[in-house]
């Protein structure tokens, strides 16, 4: 950790044209349909999208937790120079937890109810490093609990998950994820099940830990407020594709894709001064079993053109700092600019 904080940020993760499909009895569902992005060290990337946009599936395939009938059918995931998709089971086990770990939405379903929290924390550590003794593992676990702001850590070690409150459980989950000092943490809606005041605590904690350890985070959420709070870069997903990606500033202050613009416009804000009518995105979310032919957002888009319904738009650079967006409008604008 310490030795690479000084180095210039390097590419930690490179996802190229990743495709994940679910083969269900009623047909193939393309949950992730050709997405590419890269993540630098120490970067916090937010992935936003509605339910069913493929944001969780994408993250599960990085860490090799994709469940049947889901299957990676194309592309590559390169982490630190190695293609994760080529790992065998044993290598994957070493990779998972050691280099990349994950925290989930509902901590109660991820903690084992019949083991003490301390036991589970120590297990995570000893699994990956067999040389660590019991005493040392215990000390490290206590240290981790203290790091995530759990008081009476020694006493808490002997307690079971049900004795923890929701916020405390999420803290314990974070401690467990970080105990092997991973380089990348994938957080799948870590605050969605929590109340706002607890959410604020957890976000503060994650920001703090990120600063201390310098790990990269992929933060999956549907809450744009949380993204604005914690992320450096944002990917906006719709129907298994990345429709826009850029720095947090670009996404919030100069969104390029109609879907991103629509999302930002449709949110009520607590700091609004007078009552303004919300501008919703019309229509219903895509049915991934029968996705539209061209741009997936086409049928709901207010700027929809003929070409949008027939062909999928390419991901184009629309600004500096790797700001990309997939929309035929950009192609049209470019052509117009060239003509002039």
């Amino acid at each position, binding site marked *: 950790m310490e030795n690479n904080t000084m180095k210039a940020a390097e590419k930690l993760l490179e996802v190229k044209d990743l495709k994940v499909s679910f083969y269900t009895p009623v047909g193939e569902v393309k949950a992730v349909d050709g997405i590419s992005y890269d993540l630098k060290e120490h970067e916090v990337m937010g992935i936003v999208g509605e339910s069913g946009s493929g944001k969780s599936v994408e993250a599960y395939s990085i860490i090799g937790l994709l469940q049947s009938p889901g299957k990676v059918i194309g592309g590559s995931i390169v982490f630190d120079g190695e293609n994760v998709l080529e790992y065998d089971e044993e290598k994957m086990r070493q990779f998972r937890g050691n280099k990349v770990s994950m925290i989930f939405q509902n901590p109660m379903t991820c903690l084992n109810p019949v083991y003490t929290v301390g036991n589970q924390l120590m297990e995570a550590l000893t699994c990956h490093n067999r040389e660590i003794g019991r005493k040392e593992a215990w000390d490290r676990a206590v240290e981790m609990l203290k790091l995530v702001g759990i008081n009476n850590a020694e006493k808490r070690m002997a307690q079971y998950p049900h004795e923890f409150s929701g916020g405390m459980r999420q803290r314990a989950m974070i401690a467990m994820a970080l105990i092997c000092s991973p380089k990348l943490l994938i957080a799948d809606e870590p605050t969605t099940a929590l109340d706002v005041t*607890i959410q604020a605590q957890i*976000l503060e904690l994650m920001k703090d830990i990120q600063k201390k350890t310098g790990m990269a985070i992929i933060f999956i959420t549907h809450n744009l407020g949380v993204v*604005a709070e914690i992320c450096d870069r944002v990917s906006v997903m719709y129907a298994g594709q990345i429709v826009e990606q850029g720095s947090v500033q670009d996404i919030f202050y100069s969104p390029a894709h109609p879907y991103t613009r629509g999302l930002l416009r*449709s949110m009520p804000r607590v*700091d609004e001064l007078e009552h303004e009518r919300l501008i919703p995105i019309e229509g219903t979310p895509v049915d991934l079993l029968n996705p539209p032919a061209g741009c997936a957002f086409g049928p709901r888009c207010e700027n929809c053109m003929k070409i949008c319904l027939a062909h999928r738009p390419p991901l184009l650079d629309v600004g500096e700092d790797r700001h990309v967006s997939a929309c035929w409008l950009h192609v049209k604008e470019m052509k117009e600019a060239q003509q002039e």
Partner: protein
Amino acid sequence: MSEMKKLLEVEHLRKYFPIKSGFFKKEYVQAVEDVSFFIYEGETLGIVGESGCGKTTLGRSILRLVEPSSGRVIYDGETIFDGEKKSQPAMLPYRTNMQIVFQDPSASLDPRMTVGEIVGEALMVHRPDLKGKAYRERINELLETVGLNSEHANRFPHEFSGGQQQRIGIARALAVEPEFIVCDEPISALDVSIQSQVVNMLEDLQAEKHLTYLFIAHDISVVRHVSNRIGVMYLGQMVEMAESYELCSRPMHPYTQSLLSAVPLPDPDKTRAKKRTILEGDVPSPLHPPTGCRFHTRCPRATEKCAQYAPEWKEYAPGHFAACHCLDEGN
């Protein structure tokens, strides 16, 4: 404001749920504790609070879907619940005036009934005069009001998306032409892009049919958007209530202040510059609520007095109610 008619008045409402703890011993979860407020006709009163603060129980006990433990509920001048009396008036005639929209649309629609049957069920009870064609027409009309169409009447709930299911739930509530609707987290189960559709629809319906809403939600940004006035609940008690702009710009109660400061804004510069009062710890159990002010265990401004005496519910500015000792001492 003073000329406006109070449609619903709630006085010292309490709801305790008994739970068994040991042999012969009973304990009570104090879900709603001494809540008093009123709703003007035609307005939207928002109720916000964290999970377990009793906001849903409050909504349900007003409609007597759960029987309150004590207190009084007065609807349109008629007492529909009085804890001091032994027998309570029958609710059936009031059900045509008061309806509810539930949180989880997939759980609140019977999977074995068609949409037409779901929406029409209340009509069969309350409008037995509607038969045959008139009955079907009324159902189609209701479906059209919520943005669905008559073909949908023969389908089953699972064939619809979450947003559409919630529309069905709203159509069902509207079937008996109510004046007052309790919206219990109507949009929290929906996707972000669909939430605003439903919010706009609720607003349109309110303007068109002159409805009064009690809008319960945990998301203060949504409540701020739809409500005329907002009440903030903590651990079964109302801690503050005011006109919504007033409440969000000049919150008095320390809990409201920290709740507002905890909301992340979809604006990176603003949200990162925001001063936060992050509350320590978790919400205590409503089984053994703290003595005195229930918020004192997490309150950044708590004093000894707060631990001993419960603060009074007072009007500190016109229309701005709160219950906090800090406000009394003039600081």
